[in-house]
């Protein structure tokens, strides 16, 4: 279990407990957090669960797999600190993770 904070583009905070093994995307979708669309359902086939992760956490996350960076090319305003939240799996180590949501997903 990890406490994860999702910050909407307008600054609104949502901190929720997400069960280990779920993705950061699933944590958002199951708790109706606006701003994560996840159109493809987590198959890394779209870029609508795009989040920004500030450096201090970005560097602690497991590295991107092949394909994630390719999909991020198609995200809305991708940055160096962009990730697809469907590819970040929750574990105890991620307790306290903060992700920032982009202005929009599409």
């Amino acid at each position, binding site marked *: 279990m990890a406490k994860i904070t999702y910050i909407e583009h307008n600054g609104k905070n949502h901190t929720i407990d997400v069960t280990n093994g779920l993705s950061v995307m699933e944590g958002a979708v199951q708790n109706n957090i606006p701003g994560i669309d996840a159109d*493809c*359902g987590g198959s890394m086939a779209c870029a*609508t669960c795009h989040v920004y992760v500030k450096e201090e956490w970005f560097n602690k996350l497991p590295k991107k797999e092949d394909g994630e960076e*390719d999909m991020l*090319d198609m995200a809305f*305003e991708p940055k*160096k600190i962009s990730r697809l939240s469907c590819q970040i799996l929750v574990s105890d180590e991620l307790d306290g993770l903060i992700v920032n949501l982009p202005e929009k997903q*599409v």
Partner: protein
Amino acid sequence: MIKTDALIIGAGPTGLFTAHQLKLIGLNCEIVDNLDKIGGQCIELYPDKPIYDIPAIPECTGEELTNNLIEQLKPFNIKFHLSERVDELKKNNSNWEIKTNKGTKFSTPNVIIAGGVGSFEPRKFNLKECQKYENNSVLYSVKDKTVFKGKTVSIFGGGDSAVDWAIELSKDSKVNLIHRRDEFRGAQLNVNKVHDLNKSGKIKLFTKYQLKTVNGKDNLENIEIESDDKEIKKLDTDYILGFFGLIMQLGPIADWGLNIDKKTIPVDTEKFETNQKGIYAVGDICNYPGKLKLILSGFHEGALAARACFKLARPDEKYRFEFTTSSKTIKNRLGIKE
């Protein structure tokens, strides 16, 4: 006006198998899809990725699955309307009247929406100013490459489209290729070619840059691109081409008076009918308790929706369930001679 027993919106696996089911029970149908090819997400998003959960097919790619479904439809002559998007849907007595963006009109008692997560549209630049020049000097596809002759073209993107067009247009135009990172996902052979053309000065390559501003009055004059380190470069350009892949948007479906919940359409699990009589939703776009977004679920949903279509298309006949293994009628429809 084309009259048909059922119109299917979406030529993905679910739409294709639904067409098969309709034809098997003796109904005719036509299929409309906004993409220029058959296959939906399977062909657009993951043609090469293996799928492992199609019953009785241990492993196949999105492309193989699509080809097999097309093969399965061969006995039936089904009319596809590709590169067309259904824009309007209106009730006229007991029929639905449908109009596409190209003006094709249909009249049918049954509309089956097998639209996945909506229609694929090109992802556009986020800058508002780009809209002003869209379709003139800001483009998301190439329809006529001769317009670029002798001009400066700034191409954005890192996939095959961006890479291939950069190479092609560099023959007769000045080309800037701009991408947000160093790696390109285009075919390696062509990526190497781009680097060669960059060395010989035929293509100017800017990596780790993104579009910052577009400037001009009536016509586009120049653009500014910004690097990750906030360094800004100004480039004179006549055209901007953006190749950021396709995004899925629900599009006009949202305006047809259907109940919509989080981009999906609630249906019953007997007919897969929506809140409108004669409009069904199957595959990823439909929603009901326990819904799984699996291709096999789409097949099941399409088979049941097809049976529901029979009642409205043939109100005076009674539908009889038959097996393909034993029914003579079905074998005739499949063109099987015994």
